[in-house]
């Protein structure tokens, strides 16, 4: 296992573009702190984000994992290109000839995906701890360490997304087209959702029930947007008469759906590779 990771590490570390993207990704995560300095005026009211309690434990776990997950696109580019470059450089052929089995090849890529997600999660934990300890109004250990399941969800979310990217990289073999395919797939899921929701199952929850099983939808369902959970938004909503009773929690079945997708993507990659003549 360590050998496979070392092989992958060797491939990545000399690639300048991969290095730049990975470093940018981690720097951007630390920039979440900058959100604290955002302020703007709505009419008479002066609005400072930092005052809205976004850095309060345990809400910060939710907020940061949601924001940091947006940045996953940077690593997605790295992963798609690390798959498809093996095809365009034809190095995958050489790897197999040199004695790497097809299973080992996929495993080495998937291990890299896990490591990327793991390091991101660890990094997010550290950044959030630092931010929270500096800005949070509550500093009791029991509060700090509640809602940690958001980190687990973040890890599964990243792994799921990257496994999808890995599969697309193998399927399409060209990084630009694979990323294009990713965007097209995301749009298709949204269109299908709109179609089901507003045409077929109008006025029911059936569309949402069905869509939660789709890959990108299930991945994005893991961490619900945190903004409407803020006090300011809640009060604003109740003032205009709306009631926000969203479920912000993380549910085991949502995690399970994504984990099943991860298994499907990894095996589908392996089957694709096994069936193909290089």
């Amino acid at each position, binding site marked *: 296992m360590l*050998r496979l990771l*070392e*092989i992958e590490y*060797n*491939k990545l570390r*000399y*690639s*300048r573009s991969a290095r730049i993207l990975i470093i940018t990704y981690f720097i951007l995560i630390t920039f979440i702190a900058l959100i604290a300095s955002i302020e703007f005026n709505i009419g008479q009211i002066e609005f400072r984000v930092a005052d809205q309690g976004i850095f309060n434990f345990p809400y910060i776990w939710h907020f940061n994992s949601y924001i940091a997950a947006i940045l996953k696109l940077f690593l997605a580019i790295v992963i798609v290109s690390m798959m498809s470059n093996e095809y365009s*450089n*034809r*190095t995958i*052929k*050489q*790897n*197999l*000839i*040199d*004695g*790497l*089995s*097809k299973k*080992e090849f996929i495993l080495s890529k998937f291990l890299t995906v896990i490591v990327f997600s793991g390091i991101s999660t660890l990094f997010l934990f550290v950044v959030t701890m630092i931010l929270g300890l500096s800005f949070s109004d509550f500093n009791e250990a029991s509060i700090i360490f509640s809602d940690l399941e958001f980190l687990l969800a973040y890890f599964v979310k990243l792994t799921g997304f990257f496994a999808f990217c890995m599969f697309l990289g193998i399927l399409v073999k060209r990084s630009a087209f694979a990323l294009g395919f990713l965007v097209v797939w995301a749009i298709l899921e949204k269109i299908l959702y709109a179609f089901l929701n507003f045409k077929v199952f109008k006025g029911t929850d059936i569309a949402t029930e069905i869509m939660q099983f789709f890959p990108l939808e299930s991945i994005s369902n893991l961490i619900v947007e945190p903004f409407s959970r803020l006090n300011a938004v809640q009060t604003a909503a109740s003032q205009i008469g709306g009631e926000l009773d969203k479920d912000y929690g993380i549910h085991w079945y949502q995690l399970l759906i994504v984990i099943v997708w991860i298994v499907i993507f990894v095996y589908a990659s392996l089957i694709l590779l*096994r*069936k*193909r*003549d*290089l």
Partner: protein
Amino acid sequence: METILSLNNLTKKFGRITAVDDLSFSIEKGNVYGILGPNGSGKSTTLGMVLNVVNKTSGNFQWFDGKMSTHEALKKVGAIIEHPNFYPYMTAEQNLALVCKIKGTNKSKILEKLEIVGLLDRKDSKFKTFSLGMKQRLAIASALLNDPEILILDEPTNGLDPQGIHQIREIIRKIASGGTTILLASHLLDEVEKVCSHVVIIRKGEKLYSGPVDQIINSFGFFELKATDMTRLEELLQTHPKIGKITTNEGFITAILDDPMEADEINSFLFEKGLSLSYLNKRKESLEEQFLQLTNQTAQN
């Protein structure tokens, strides 16, 4: 003798096209083999199958008597196929270090092998800056990293200039003289003739011949003769029992042997009949002539 690789009825179909048809042969340790065949005859597909990159349709193959799985066996094999494939953004040395990792061998041999192919001074240059000849030589260095039991080369001189071709051949010859088993696929007959002891000839995916180079066709060779009185020479040759077909071209008479005979025998035979020769040469068919004869024979059948 130890068998390194054996193919049994190996077949590959791409849709309706049969690229490799029921191919069987085996590779023994210590010999230099050539796989010979025109372009598109299935050489690369055959190598692709035994190298785990092309899926076989039917039949099977075994590395080292089937003692280990294909990908384990490939760690003891050095192979380059058509294009040299490396990571363009990595240097020669970094690329070879990666191959070492995959093969699970020690990195200590990298510089030694770069030296053999004459790339030691370019070890820190990126692969993408290399010329085709250098890329091909780097590929050979990479194939040699594990001191392989067998070296497989697919069209190693394809697309190279004469100097590059010469360099690669010199390297192959050096490796062959060290006792390494080599399997060389090529459509260039003189290339195979120069380095190989055994050949496998395939055409349209079918095996026409496999065995030692000099036994491709049943032949005892032929004489090229010249004398002042050419008509008398031809008459006399026709009376000799060991001589078969006689043809005249470019001022020579070519007499093909039906039975083995040495040059001194025909010389004294003609001299006794009162004819002296101005030119006498005994030759065996070149690989090219043998190859053409063989492909013509099978075409006629």
